[in-house]
């Protein structure tokens, strides 16, 4: 019976319930598995001593809840005795922290032995603990406390620290197998202590017989283990980066649900992107929203809260505390803020140690300590000589700028707050757009990474041939044609891919992931002759790419190849709608491949299986419909709206106008090439005298889209200007809608578009 009770999973130290703990599930499993299997691992049939697990943390990646959850799981499993200790943020000395460790260890040990989890939450003295100790443990606990009392009044602080930290070794092995979770994220706060706490913690753990997990900022922990002479070979390593996108989304949704904060898909994605997947930032924002009883259902609400938090809330307190610790003297702190602030926006990434010394007016040792502290927090990269301030998080940079304006420039707070908010609001859609572009670009890079000497139809790289064969063909016909194609191309084996920007920074203006450099070998053997570099670019063109665009990109990529010293190259351009005849000619002249997005998708499907995004549906008060983009699905919408319109007794002519309008609206929505979910959301609201239809899609808002609605009456087709004609067509849909419907307007949404169209019954009947 008791076993079942334990299996239920009591929440002991965890701050969220197990089923609400999202984002680090795999890491939790790994941690628990380490705790239950450490000392019993084998490699090639031989036991391996892997008692220690180093959890190397990127700043703000969050680890405490992970350790607490692992603690709870171990406690409930009853196999090992878990001990969780986090270095206090406010304790100023190594001695007080070590004493706290001793107390926590005894408290949690007794709680486990008595199987009374609630004891873990109590604050008890050592005498209280002796009273609670099970009889079997009383002898060694009394002996420990007696020894501690002797040690406590000694003069050697280091000895006392060591005594406390090694206390778990005194537990007789027959009384249970301990596992120590040591959360040392706050270790930097003890850097000034008279006792080298980092070294003592590492020694106490690494040189003891007990299994453990030591978590801390990666740069600091690695440094501490190295300095303490720890053997890395005997340690497992778990790296914690900021959450990946999917996990970060789950965390936002879970935390919002827990705190009863209303969010939507758009703000969820904004929080994930803007807060860079940091569990700390995400949790802080949602806690703040709960405290202020705010709904985060618009970019404005998110950014308002963000700026509040940055200027005076949790985010501000966190960064202020880090900064105050790094530079306790106000004068030095102000100089550091100025130095960092000047470096970030100007792109002047690196400065010399000497330059910092002069500006800070400190001696070399002081500057070294300060830079080391900044380096550990990853606010700069310091290699002993140069200081690079470019890599820190954008939230930190926002904090820094506002701090600089307030403290150094003494600008009025109201001005700074409004400016920061305006900047944040302007940046929000850009952040999301950049994210979508990056995702789209990543697909290019991912696809190239899958090139592994497969044979694929050559037509997938030849737009002219593909168009000649498959224009007007259905998906099944194309698939059958490609399957039967005997002209095949052997892909190279790609061993490395990089963004073109990483080799040629001037390409940044076209987007971080618009071009990819893929290093590869042909014919499966690794020789100089077979080495080849594929230079690939996704062209930003709604229509068929023309000769001039293709020429520009061919030149850019060729230039990159020259600069980088690539000998054999293959150019491959991907344009959404393919290429004009003149562009195709140029591709042939340059021996370059050219594919449309459709060819790209077909190639992608051939190389790997795709996964669909989840679908969602809501809104009980209206007819609503969610359709995947493409595949003539607009006809489904037209059929449904026809039924709805008939119920309202619209005339056949009006029904046809509504159908045409909805078809055009769907096509328009589908043309947002970077829609993340490729879905069209439709709502039909029936009112007494009108039908209101709203067509929405997520993604990037096409520039000047509003202009198509605001311009004059629908224009007739200018057939003589073939280039402009295609460009004109983009606007026809919206202009047609405006002509066919009575009222048309774009609703303001944070992301993508939402087009509301109204048709009046009386008006249409006239």
């Amino acid at each position, binding site marked *: 019976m008791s076993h079942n009770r334990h299996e239920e999973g009591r929440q002991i130290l965890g701050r969220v319930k197990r089923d609400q703990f999202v984002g680090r599930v795999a890491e939790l499993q790994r941690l628990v598995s380490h705790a239950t299997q450490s000392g019993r691992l084998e490699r090639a049939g031989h036991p391996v001593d892997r008692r220690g697990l180093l959890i190397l943390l990127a700043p703000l990646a969050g680890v405490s809840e992970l350790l607490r959850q692992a603690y709870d799981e171990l406690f409930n499993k009853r196999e090992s005795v878990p001990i969780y200790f986090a270095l206090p943020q406010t304790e100023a000395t190594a001695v007080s922290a070590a004493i706290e460790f001793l107390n926590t260890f005894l408290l949690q040990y007794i709680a486990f032995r008595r199987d009374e989890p609630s004891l873990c939450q109590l604050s008890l003295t050592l005498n209280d603990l002796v009273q609670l100790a099970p009889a079997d443990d009383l002898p060694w606990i009394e002996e420990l406390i007696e020894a501690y009392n002797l040690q406590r009044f000694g003069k050697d602080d280091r000895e006392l620290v060591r005594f406390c930290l090694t206390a778990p070794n005194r537990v007789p092995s027959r009384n249970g197998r301990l596992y120590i979770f040591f959360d040392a994220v706050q270790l930097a706060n003890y850097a000034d202590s008279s006792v080298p706490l980092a070294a003592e913690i590492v020694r106490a753990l690494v040189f003891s017989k007990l299994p453990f997990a030591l978590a801390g900022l990666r740069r600091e922990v690695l440094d501490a283990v190295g300095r303490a002479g720890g053997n890395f070979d005997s340690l497992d390593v778990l790296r914690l980066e900021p959450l990946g996108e999917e996990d970060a989304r789950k965390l936002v949704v879970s935390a919002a649900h827990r705190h009863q904060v209303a969010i939507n898909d758009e703000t969820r994605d904004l929080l994930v992107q803007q807060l860079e997947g940091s569990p700390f930032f995400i949790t802080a924002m949602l806690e703040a929203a709960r405290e202020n009883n705010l709904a985060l259902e618009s970019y404005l609400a998110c950014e308002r809260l963000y700026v509040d938090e940055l200027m005076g809330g949790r985010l501000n307190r966190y960064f202020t505390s880090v900064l105050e610790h790094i530079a306790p003297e106000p004068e030095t702190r102000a100089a550091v803020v100025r130095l960092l602030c000047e470096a970030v926006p100007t792109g002047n990434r690196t400065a010399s140690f000497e330059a910092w010394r002069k500006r800070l007016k400190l001696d070399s040792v002081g500057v070294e300590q300060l830079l080391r502290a900044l380096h550990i927090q990853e606010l700069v990269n310091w290699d002993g000589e140069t200081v690079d301030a470019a890599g820190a998080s954008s939230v930190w940079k926002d904090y820094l700028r506002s701090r600089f304006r307030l403290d150094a420039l003494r600008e009025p707070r109201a001005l700074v707050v409004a400016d920061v908010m305006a900047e944040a609001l302007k940046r929000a859609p850009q952040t999301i757009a950049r994210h979508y572009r990056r995702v789209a670009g990543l697909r290019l890079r991912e696809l190239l990474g899958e090139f592994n000497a497969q044979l694929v139809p050559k037509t997938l790289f030849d737009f002219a041939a593909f168009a000649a064969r498959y224009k007007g063909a259905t998906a099944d016909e194309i698939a059958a044609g490609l399957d*039967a194609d005997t002209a095949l191309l052997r892909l190279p084996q790609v061993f490395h891919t990089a963004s073109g920007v990483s080799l040629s920074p001037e390409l940044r203006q076209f987007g971080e992931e618009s071009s990819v450099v893929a290093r590869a070998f042909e014919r499966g053997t690794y020789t100089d002759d077979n080495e080849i570099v594929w230079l690939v670019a996704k062209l930003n063109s709604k229509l068929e790419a023309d000769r001039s665009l293709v020429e520009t990109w061919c030149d850019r990529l060729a230039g990159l190849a020259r600069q980088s010293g690539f000998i054999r190259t293959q150019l491959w351009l991907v344009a959404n709608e393919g290429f004009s005849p003149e562009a195709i000619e140029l591709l042939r002249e340059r021996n370059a491949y050219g594919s449309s997005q459709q060819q790209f998708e077909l190639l992608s499907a051939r190389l790997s299986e795709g996964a669909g995004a989840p679908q969602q549906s809501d809104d009980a008060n209206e007819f609503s419909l969610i359709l995947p983009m493409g595949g003539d699905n607009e006809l489904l919408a037209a059929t449904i709206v026809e039924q709805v319109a008939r119920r309202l007794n619209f005339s056949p002519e009006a029904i046809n106008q509504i159908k045409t309008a909805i078809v055009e609206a769907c096509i328009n929505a589908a043309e947002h090439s970077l829609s993340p979910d490729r879905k069209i959301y439709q709502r039909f609201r029936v009112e007494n005298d009108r039908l209101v239809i709203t067509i929405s899609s997520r993604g990037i808002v096409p520039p000047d889209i509003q202009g198509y609605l605001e311009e004059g009456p629908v224009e007739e087709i200018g057939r003589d200007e073939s280039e402009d004609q295609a460009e004109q067509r983009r606007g026809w849909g919206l202009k047609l809608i405006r002509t066919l419907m009575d009222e048309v307007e774009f609703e303001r949404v944070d992301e993508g578009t939402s087009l509301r169209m109204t048709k009046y019954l009386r008006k249409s009947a006239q």
Partner: protein
Amino acid sequence: MEESIKSHIRSHCVGTTAVVYASDYLNKLTGERIERECKKQLDSGARALVIDFSDTELVNSIGISILLGIIDIAEKIGALVVFSDVNDETVQLFDMLGLTRHVVLARDEQEALSGLSTPPTQTQAISH
């Protein structure tokens, strides 16, 4: 390489006039099929095109832009284009975009053929 994919567009020739039948929904895919068929007919010597819309219930702007391309191609080689049996709603749409200024509209295929004054020498089914 194989021959081109079958377009599934119904068409036939009456003398040097090709009659091509549009399907129920004129969009990018079906528009491109009509375009392909029309080009094929023109390449084979047709000097007039009748595009019949008797089955067509709905057209979209992409389909219309493709029709415009067909008109262009035909015009360049001096071929005439007639649209037959276009429903009122679609005529309204063509009007709106000025397409009707560039083609002749006929009530039905027969009227189109008569209008083109093409002697009905032979009728040959091309594809189905």
